[in-house]
């Protein structure tokens, strides 16, 4: 790899790894556990019960429980070890999010590629008064960034920061009418400027 080909000095490029990352709320670990354990405990007795009603070979049931145990262990490790790795950070122009133990991902989404920003809260999150922030980018929805388990103030701050940067972009682009995408982006953020999805109120 020869970067000397390029006109940019490598040392002048900011490194996203140097950003100090913030942890998400500790309560979210409980949310993760509950979200995993409830379905687990509901499904757990099913193979055992099936022995009572049908003639299932014992070996099958033992096999199923083995698989479930392995699954449980891996998920437990993922939640326990992976949780401290769930972090996010904000730079001037982009947002960084990392997570995962078995598969560790480090995502960076530039603010100006954000199409929409949404603050969401599912039933479990509501119980713990936590929120998740979803940043939509253009294209397939797998490219969207979701930060789960942050409190409302943080979510609001992040959202306004993103909108602010995106809006500076829009003003610049108003001179260039060919930027259609920006036009409706601005339309969106003007018609429902806050887009608050506070179901709890």
């Amino acid at each position: 790899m020869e970067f000397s080909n390029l006109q940019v000095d490598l040392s002048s490029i900011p490194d996203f790894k140097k950003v100090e990352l913030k942890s998400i709320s500790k309560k979210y670990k409980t949310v993760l556990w509950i979200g995993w354990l409830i379905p687990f405990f509901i499904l757990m007795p099913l193979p055992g019960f099936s022995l009572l009603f049908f003639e299932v070979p014992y070996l099958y049931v033992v096999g199923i429980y083995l698989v479930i145990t392995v699954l449980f262990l891996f998920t437990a490790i993922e939640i326990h070890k992976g949780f401290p790795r769930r972090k996010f950070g904000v730079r001037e122009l982009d947002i960084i999010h990392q997570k995962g133990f078995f598969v560790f991902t480090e995502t960076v989404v530039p603010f100006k590629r954000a199409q929409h920003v949404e603050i969401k809260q599912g039933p479990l999150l509501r119980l713990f008064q936590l929120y998740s922030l979803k940043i939509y980018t253009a294209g397939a929805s797998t490219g969207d960034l979701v930060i789960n388990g942050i409190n409302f103030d943080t979510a609001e701050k992040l959202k306004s920061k993103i909108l602010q940067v995106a809006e500076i972009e829009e003003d610049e682009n108003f001179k260039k009418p060919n930027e259609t995408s920006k036009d409706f982006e601005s339309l969106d953020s003007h018609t429902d400027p806050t887009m608050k999805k506070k179901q709890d109120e």
Partner: protein
Amino acid sequence: MNKNDFSSPQLQDFRGVFIIFFADVARKIRRYFFAFFIPLLNENFRAFVFNYFILAIILLVALSFGYAYLLFINFKFQIKGQSFQLNHGVIKRSNVEIPFERIQNINLEQNIFQRFLNVVGFQVETAGEGNAEITIKALRREVAVDLKNQLLEEVKQLNPEVIDDQENEHQQDAKQIHTHYRNSKVLMELDFISLFKVGISSNFLKGLSILLLFISSLFNFFFDILSHFLAIDFEEDFFNRIPETLTFGVIFVGFLLLLGFLITVLSVMIRYFGLRVLRLKNNFEVEYGLIKRINQVIKKNKTQVVEIETNPIKKWLKINNLFVSQASSVQLSDAQKIGMVGITNAQIDTFFEAIFDLSRNQKFAYLKSNFRYMIRLFWQQSVVFGIAFLIGYHFFGLAQTTAIAILILLVLVIVNYLAYKKSYVSISDDLIKIGGGSINTNTKYLALHKVQSVYLKRNIFQQLNQHADLVIYTASGREVINYLAYEKAKIFQNYILFKLESSNESWI
């Protein structure tokens, strides 16, 4: 010349019923082809239930015609306020609304049914956000052109650029769509011989897999007949007859390969029949297809990824395939990409310069995949391979299965090695170039400023051996480059972000 008023809800042309109906029947035939086919091979079935079978089909066809009529009656579009609206659906009613600002492109198209009934299809494309795209199946040409003009009139006030590109088109539309454009140049026009070259140089493994599907449904029938004629009990006599079986096997495999080859050549040729690419300033209009005529506009700013595909035979014939991915709300499948097959290097250069404003020869900094990528491929294949081996062992015995397994393993080794060798990512001042493919060589180009987000992904092994997969999202989907050295991949990620954030250009 606004003789049509679209401000009230409009129906399509009455011929739309037939278009909907035909399309539905064609889709059903394609989907349930095997279901039709298998029972017909059975003698008992032919003798007893055949009449009912025919009756059932007739009934189904009648029902789907009724449904097509309901669909037609419930399909209404109109221009309302600042948007183009569509109400449709029989059971689940839905309302699609496209504000004028979102309209990117309006296409008129004709498939074989539409050509037959002398109507045109009308398609409103958006910038790839949400699923808001409207397709009207059948309009009289005058109505379609009028509607297009009226919509463009509205869009023009909001968004002059869109119209600028289409001006040429729509003046022409007023006369005739399929006549040559006056202001446009033909970039390429594929004659029959070139098309044939494209056909024979394509990867016929794909055709082979279609064939294998087909064969597997024929298998039962085949062995039935054979055991009848030859009075062989296959399982017992197998080992006594190994020489014959082998000859038969070789002939059978050879026959399969030939058939797979023919199917591929034919399907490629039908798909890209009469390929023509027109250039309108920096946008291109592509048209191809024998049975289903596809007519699509490649817009410079909507284009995200340009992929060039070649292989040794193609190199020898001096042709390439080029595929364009435009912004879309879903991950594009290969079939959804716009194909320009049989394109020469000179034509690629012209196209490339029009789309990227750059020549193809940039100074790139390269980062290649680690050899561990090859190991990962083996891991992924080992599951399927293992299962296939067990099945083979069960049916054919150890000796034969091992022989076939070794052959397949050899092929896998070559394919995986090539896949690892050809996998890289590279960046220049304005472009990202991604290499891929195994037997084919694929090179993808995308402009740095069209990137949506970047991430590094490391599974537990990669965390230990300091490697990472680099994933780049564009508005047409994602590109993954496997197994790069972590430290260097990080530099690439930083560089892409830096360029992206310091550029003022938009992704569309």
